[in-house]
C-alpha cells in the first residue's frame, strides 16, 4: 500500500513554539513526498492532540504518522498507543525530537526552524520505510528472588509472600536483619530498632511462601524478564540446619574469640556463632578462618557438646537453581572507613569511633550493655559528633548520605539520656527534611546539645593548654562566629558516609544493571520509575540504590513488591519488537555477535552452527550488527533502508 503520511508539529506551549516557527515547519512538511496532512497543535500529547491523529487516520486513511515534539523517552509510547487505538500498527509511527535536540539548545529562531525542518524531513523519509511489527508476550513465572535480607529485602519479601506467591530470599550473612538490626533506636520517633524489626524477621523465617537462603550468594543468572534462572551457592555452615535446635551451647563453650562483625568490631564473637541472639535463622555457622579445627585439626569441642549431633565438619557448599519471574536487589550499603582521613585520627587515637560503633555501644544488648564508655572504662564528660565524614567531600563522596544529620542528633539525645556528658555537633548544614525530623532537631536543641557550623580540620591529642591535657582536641572554624577554635572533648563520634558495597560492581555485572557516578545502582528513571532498572524484571530498593533512611527504604521495597505483583497478576509481559534478527543462511557461526552482546541475548546453535537471537532478551542496541563480519544481522525497526532514508532526509 502506498504510504500516506500525517505530520503533527507540537508547540509544547512555548517550549518549542517560542523558538521554532511551527507554522513554517507545517508548510514545509506539507510539501514533502507522501505527506497527506500536516498540522500544528499546542500540546500533541494531550487528549485533543491525540484525537487529531486518530481522526486523521480514520478520515484521511493515514497509514504512517510522524509527531515532531519532545524526546521519545516519555511520549513515544503515548503516540504509539494513539495510533494503535485508531487501528494502525504502532511501529508505523515515528517521532522527531524538536525540543531537546532543537528548541532548547538555541535561541536563534531561524536556525531552530531550519533544524526542525531537517528533523521532520528525516522522520518522514524514515517512516516511509517502516514495517508493521508485532510485539510479543511471554508468560511470567510467579516466583520472585529477593537478594539481601536487610529491612529492604525483608519488607519486599513479606509483601509479595503475603499475597501467596513464592519468594526466595537470599542473604549472604548467617542471619537476615542487615544494618537495621545493629541500630539502637530509630529517629525521629525513637522506636527501638530491634523491637520493630525482629517480629518481621521472625515472620520471614516462618512464612510458608518464603524460602530463606541465608549464608548464600547468587552465583549466576540467565534468562530474561518473567523467566530468570538463578544459581545460588549455599555456603557450608558446618551445622546441619535440620538437626540444630538453636540451643546456643556450642557458641557459649567455643574457646576461640574473634572480633564480631555485628558488633562493628567493638565486641567479640566465637568461631562458631550466630551474629546476634535474635538471629533468623537461629542456626550458627562455623567461621573456618578462625575455627581451630579448620586451622590446626584439633578441638572439635562443639561437636562433642552438641546433643543434637548437628555439627558436620564434612559439609560442603551446595549450589541450587531456582526459577523466578522477577528479581529485587536489596543489597544495601557499606559504612565508609574513615581511616584514610588521617587528620581525624580514627584507629590512631583512642576514643575516636564511627557511628556504627557508637550504635552498638549505646545498644543495651551490645558489648558494653548500653553504657557509653571510654577506652579506660570511664564515662565521658564531653562528646563531639562530626557530621559528613566522607560525605559531601569531593575527596571521598560528593553526595549527602541523607541519614547522618538525623542519626547524629539521635546520638546526642541518647547520650543525654545515658550520661551527663556535654554534646557538641559539628555540621555543614542540618538536613532534617523528613516527617517529624525538624521537630526532632528542635527537641535536641532544647535538650542543650551545642551545634557548631564548621567541618573540623583536625582531631589531635596534642595539648596546647592545661585544659587540653589528656583530651581529644577538635580544631575547627566556627563559621557562624568566624573564629578558629579548639574544643577539648573525651570522645569523638564520626558520622560516616553510606557508600556502595565493596562488590557493588560485581553485583551490577552479575545482574546486568548500571551504576550511577556515585557507585550506587541506577534506577530506570529518577522520578517516574525509581525502583525499576534498565534490565526489565530487575528492581533495586533500599540503600543499594542510594543512601536513604528506613521510611524511604520501606516505601521503595513496597513499591517494588507492587511492581512485581502487578506483573505476576497480569501473568505475561510484552516484549519490544525492535530486536535483531540473524539471517541463518549468511551466518558463519563465528560468534562475534555473541561476544559483543551486552544482554547475553545471543545463543549459538551447535547443531546448525549458527547464532540465534533470543528476542525476549534483545534490547535492539545494534552491537551485534556492527560486529558481524558477514552482514548477517539486521535490526527490526532500524534497517539499513530506514537509516539511510533518515540520513537523506536530514540532509535537505
Amino acid at each position: 500500500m502506498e504510504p500516506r503520511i500525517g505530520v503533527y508539529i507540537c508547540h509544547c506551549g512555548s517550549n518549542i513554539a517560542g523558538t521554532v516557527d511551527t507554522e513554517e515547519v507545517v508548510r514545509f512538511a506539507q510539501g514533502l513526498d507522501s505527506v497527506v496532512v500536516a498540522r500544528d497543535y499546542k500540546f500533541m500529547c494531550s487528549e485533543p492532540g491525540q484525537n487529531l491523529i486518530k481522526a486523521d487516520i480514520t478520515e484521511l486513511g493515514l497509514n504512517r504518522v510522524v509527531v515532531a515534539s519532545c524526546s521519545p523517552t516519555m511520549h513515544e509510547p503515548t503516540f504509539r498507543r494513539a495510533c494503535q487505538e485508531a487501528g494502525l500498527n504502532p511501529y508505523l509511527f515515528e517521532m522527531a525530537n524538536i525540543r531537546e535536540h532543537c528548541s532548547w539548545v538555541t535561541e536563534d529562531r531561524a536556525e531552530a526552524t531550519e533544524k526542525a525542518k531537517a528533523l521532520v524531513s528525516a522522520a518522514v523519509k524514515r517512516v516511509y520505510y517502516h514495517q508493521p511489527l508485532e510485539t510479543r508476550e511471554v508468560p511470567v513465572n510467579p516466583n520472585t528472588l529477593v537478594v539481601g535480607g536487610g529491612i529492604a529485602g525483608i519488607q519486599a519479601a513479606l509483601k509479595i509472600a503475603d499475597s501467596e506467591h513464592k519468594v526466595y530470599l537470599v542473604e549472604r550473612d548467617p542471619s537476615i536483619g542487615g544494618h537495621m538490626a545493629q541500630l539502637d533506636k530509630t529517629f525521629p520517633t525513637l522506636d527501638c530498632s530491634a523491637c520493630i524489626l525482629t517480629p518481621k524477621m521472625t515472620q520471614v523465617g516462618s512464612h510458608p511462601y518464603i524460602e530463606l537462603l541465608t549464608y548464600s550468594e547468587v552465583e549466576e543468572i540467565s534468562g530474561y524478564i518473567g523467566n530468570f534462572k538463578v544459581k545460588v551457592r549455599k555456603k557450608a555452615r558446618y551445622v546441619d540446619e535440620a538437626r540444630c535446635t538453636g540451643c546456643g551451647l556450642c557458641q557459649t563453650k567455643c574457646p576461640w574469640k574473634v572480633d564480631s562483625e555485628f558488633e562493628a568490631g567493638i565486641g567479640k564473637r566465637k568461631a562458631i556463632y550466630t551474629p546476634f541472639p535474635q538471629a533468623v535463622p537461629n542456626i550458627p555457622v562455623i567461621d573456618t578462618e578462625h575455627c581451630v579445627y579448620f586451622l590446626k585439626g584439633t578441638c572439635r569441642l562443639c561437636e562433642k557438646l552438641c546433643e543434637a549431633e548437628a555439627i558436620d565438619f564434612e559439609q560442603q557448599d551446595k549450589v541450587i537453581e531456582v526459577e523466578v519471574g522477577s528479581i529485587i536487589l536489596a543489597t544495601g550499603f557499606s559504612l565508609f572507613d574513615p581511616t584514610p582521613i588521617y587528620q581525624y585520627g580514627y584507629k590512631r587515637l583512642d576514643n575516636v569511633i564511627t557511628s556504627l560503633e557508637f550504635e552498638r555501644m549505646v545498644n543495651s544488648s551490645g558489648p558494653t550493655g548500653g553504657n557509653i564508655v571510654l577506652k579506660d572504662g570511664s564515662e565521658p564528660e564531653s562528646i563531639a559528633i562530626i557530621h559528613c565524614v566522607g560525605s559531601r567531600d569531593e575527596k571521598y563522596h560528593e553526595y549527602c548520605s541523607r541519614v547522618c544529620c538525623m542519626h547524629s542528633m539521635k546520638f546526642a539525645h541518647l547520650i543525654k539520656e545515658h550520661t551527663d556528658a556535654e554534646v557538641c555537633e559539628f555540621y555543614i548544614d542540618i538536613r532534617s527534611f523528613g516527617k517529624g525530623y525538624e521537630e526532632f532537631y528542635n527537641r535536641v536543641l532544647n535538650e542543650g546539645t551545642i551545634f557548631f557550623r564548621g567541618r573540623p580540620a583536625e582531631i589531635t591529642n596534642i595539648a596546647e593548654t592545661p585544659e587540653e591535657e589528656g583530651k581529644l582536641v577538635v580544631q575547627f572554624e566556627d563559621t557562624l562566629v568566624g573564629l578558629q577554635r579548639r574544643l577539648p572533648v573525651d570522645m569523638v563520634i564520626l558520622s560516616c558516609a553510606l557508600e556502595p558495597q565493596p562488590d557493588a560492581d560485581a553485583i551490577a555485572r552479575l545482574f546486568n544493571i548500571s551504576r550511577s557516578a556515585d557507585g550506587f545502582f541506577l534506577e530506570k528513571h529518577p522520578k517516574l520509575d525509581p525502583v525499576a532498572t534498565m534490565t526489565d524484571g530487575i528492581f533495586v530498593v533500599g540503600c543499594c540504590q542510594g543512601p536513604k533512611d528506613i521510611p524511604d527504604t520501606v516505601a521503595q521495597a513496597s513499591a517494588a513488591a507492587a511492581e512485581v505483583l502487578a506483573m505476576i497478576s497480569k501473568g505475561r509481559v510484552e516484549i519490544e519488537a525492535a530486536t535483531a534478527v540473524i539471517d541463518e543462511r549468511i551466518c558463519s557461526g563465528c560468534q562475534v555477535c555473541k561476544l559483543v552482546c551486552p544482554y547475553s541475548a545471543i545463543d549459538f546453535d551447535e547443531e546448525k552452527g549458527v547464532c540465534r537471537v533470543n528476542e525476549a532478551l534483545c534490547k535492539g542496541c545494534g552491537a551485534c550488527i556492527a560486529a558481524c563480519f558477514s552482514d548477517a544481522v539486521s535490526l527490526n525497526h532500524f534497517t539499513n533502508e530506514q537509516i539511510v532514508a533518515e540520513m537523506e532526509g536530514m540532509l535537505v
Partner: protein
Amino acid sequence: MELIELEGWTCCGSTPYGSLDELEAIVVAARNLALAEKTGLDLVTPCSSCCVTLNRARIQLEDHPHLMAQVNEALAVANLEYHGNLQIRHLVDVLLNDVTPEVIASKVRHGLNGLKVAPYYGCQLVRPHYGSDDTEFPQSLDRLVESLGAEAVPYPLKARCCGGALIISEQSLALGLIRKLLDSAARNGAQCIVTPCPLCQTNLDAYQSQVNSKFKTDYNLPILFISQLIGLALGIDHISLGLNTNIVSPNEVLDYIYEVKREVNSGT
C-alpha cells in the same frame, strides 16, 4: 636530567606584593614566566612560595585574557612577552615524578640507616592544590625521605603553617606556630626535621632558640633542607651541602648516620 639556571631571573614578588598591588605583582611574576617560556623548558623551583606565586600568576593569566594583554603591555618594555605555555613545578614534584624515589634509592651511597625524620611539607607545597599530592595528608616527601634509608616518623602537623613572613610582623604568634611544629616532631621521636620550603627552614632553624627562651623549652632539632638530606645520602660532603651554616647544629645527625654506618661496617 639537567638543571639550567634561568638567566636573568628575579624575585617572584612573593606573597606581600600581591596584597599591595595585584597587577604589579602579576607582572613581576610574569617576567620570570616569559623568560622561562623562551627556553621551551619546564620551570622548576626549590621554593614552595615561588611555586605558588608563579603558578597563581600563570593561572590568572590563563583565566583572564584581558589581564594577559595588560601584563604583556608592561613586559613589552623589557622586550618580553608571555603566551601561557609554561609548566611551573616544585623540586619535590620533579624528584618524585621525574627522577623517582627508586632511582634516588639506587644512587644512595651512605644510607641514612633509619634516621628518624619528621617530613615537614609546610603549607604552600600542597596548598593551593596545584600538584597531585593530598592537601591534608601529603605523602610525597615521606616517600623521598624513605628512599634515602631514613624513617619518616608520623607527623600530624606536616602541612601546617610555620608563620611564614609573620615572624617579622607578628613574632609572638609565629613563634607559637613554630613551637607546635617542633613539639609534634619531638614527641614523635624525630631526630631532625626536613623541609622543601626555604622560609620554613629559616623559621624553624633560626628561631628555635627564641622558641626555647619564650616557652621555656629545650628543643634541639636540626632543620635540614630537602637537598641537604638527599646530599648526605648521596655521599656529598657536609660543607658542600652547607650543613655548617645551619643554625641548629646538625652534628648529632651526622654522628648518628656515620656511627651507625661504622657499626654496620665493623660488623661485616
